């Protein structure tokens, strides 16, 4: 497996944000019937890498994300962030914190706060920045992400694509090591989605962080990722890990390139097989 950090273009190499998932098991025990959600899963995500986790809905990939974020405990195994233990058998639940920020499936901007107040929430709550500095930084970052003009609107007043961008800016305000994205674009129509992919890459090229991105869309995965991990359906573990050798920066031209098509063909069967398994098992969404 290639563990080198991807070479960012024109910026310093990313040195933080390496996630090492080592032999993680998660067993849910609802009503005594043990359900294995994650089965001896190991995955090494290099610092500054975009790692796409692909699998059918309900395969257990969100469980993995919840373990890294610190929302749920694990049964055994270890997850390390830059060599430090996030969670292990002895300390099954990680502490949520601003070094690992989640962007939620249905969005979790606070609808009662303006976009700007959402963006400054992290640094102000942590006491890292005074309100004024936070507001200055927030406005600048929003402008960079093409969000100038909606600072004082409430999230409910802007388009869903904009809401996603605000949420990513809110995360980046904290200078996180890792962004954890849980199918952030599944609710968007395909046109908005394509715009959002380029916008995400643009933000990424400017703020290199490790991205752990869950999706069930193979094209999205190969278009965005340095690495694509195709997961088996419940219990979840990597079935195939693919290194996408299409150089960054990428734009939508990639989608029609020969290499892109080849990679899709190479992996399509594996994904389809798992989707079929999930369908036959009648898995619920999750």
């Amino acid at each position, binding site marked *: 497996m290639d563990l080198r950090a991807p070479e960012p273009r024109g910026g310093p190499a990313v040195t933080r944000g390496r996630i090492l998932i080592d032999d993680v098991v998660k067993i849910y025990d609802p009503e005594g019937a043990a359900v294995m959600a994650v089965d001896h899963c190991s995955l090494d995500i290099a610092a500054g890498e975009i790692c796409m986790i692909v699998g059918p809905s309900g395969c257990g990939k969100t469980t993995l994300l919840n373990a890294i974020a610190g929302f749920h405990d694990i049964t055994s195994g270890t997850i390390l962030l830059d060599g430090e233990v996030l969670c292990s058998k002895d300390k099954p639940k990680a502490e949520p914190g601003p070094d690992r920020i989640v962007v939620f499936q249905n969005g979790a901007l606070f609808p009662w706060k303006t976009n700007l107040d959402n963006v400054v929430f992290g640094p102000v709550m942590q006491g890292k920045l005074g309100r004024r500095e936070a507001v200055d930084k927030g406005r600048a970052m929003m402008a960079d992400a093409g969000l100038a003009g909606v600072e004082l609107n409430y999230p409910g007043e802007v*388009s869903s694509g904009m809401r996603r961008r605000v949420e990513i800016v809110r995360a980046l305000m904290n200078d996180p090591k890792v962004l954890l994205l849980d199918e952030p674009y599944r609710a968007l129509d395909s046109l908005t989605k394509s715009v959002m992919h380029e916008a995400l890459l643009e933000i990424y090229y400017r703020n290199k962080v490790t991205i752990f991105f869950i999706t069930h869309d193979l094209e999205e995965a190969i278009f965005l990722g340095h690495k694509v991990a195709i997961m088996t359906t419940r219990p979840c573990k990597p079935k195939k890990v693919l290194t996408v050798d299409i150089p960054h920066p990428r734009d939508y031209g990639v989608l029609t390139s020969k290499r892109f098509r080849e990679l899709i063909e190479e992996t399509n069967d594996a994904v389809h097989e798992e989707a079929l398994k999930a369908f036959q098992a009648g898995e619920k969404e999750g």
Partner: protein
Amino acid sequence: MPDALAQPRGPTDRAQPEEMSRLGLTMYRLSLWLQSPRPYLMVVGFALFLGFWYLAVEVWRLPRFKEMPGITTVIKEWLSPNPTYGLSFHTAEYYQHIGMSIWRVAQAFFLATVLGVPFGLFLGWSRKFKEYVFPVFELLRPIPILAWVPLAIVMFIATESAIVFLAFLASFFATALNTMLGVESLDESYTRAASCLGAGKWQVFRHVILPGALPFIFTGLQISIGVSWFSLVAAEMVSGQYGLGYVINTSYMMVRYPTIVIGMITLGFVGYATSALVRIAGDYLMEWRVRELALAER
């Protein structure tokens, strides 16, 4: 059906009332209302209701209705400087009764809100607290307010406090229950997002739980002010001097039928006005919600 739930919530790319002030927003909503057929339908609805009252009592003299005071009698009495039964727009006593009832409801509603909201927040926030308290709460809640009357009179020697207590009790249950539901129905991702962003427990409470529960809290307050009037009038009918419930009850005993109807209609208006005040307070505190509704043209 998570896919359906995952649809974008608001309308896309349409940020119309974005730069509006609060007043501007209110005017915008008012103009929407006036442009819609709703106000005219409302007038028609009132006309039908009052017309039926007039016809049923005074023209057709339907059985059951012919003993009722007719609309013309009531209005004449209400507007008369020298009312036959002693209560009209022109008598000071009329306003004393209204004032007394409002004062009692205000006390009861204030107490119920000040105690019920924190209580409900705590019920929703702490599972342990809920396990201790909620079963008792659920057992007391269905007891009709009228069943509390004797106990209230025993507990409070002064009738005045007993009446306020009864009005408070019903309000308190409604407020606390809705507040609790508000906390419980808050999407988990909001609290998770806040903890990701480094907010402490108290900060999550202050910036996420409380504002997130606010729509439910105000639904509770709407119900609360309604049941507060309901139980107040019941209490005033049982004991007490002054108040609209007292007016209705004594007028019944002294066969002053038009005054009963005056008391009832007055209750309708005053009750509506107090709920409107609660709604306005809610709109003021939840501008974000008003804007979302305005965008949805509601």
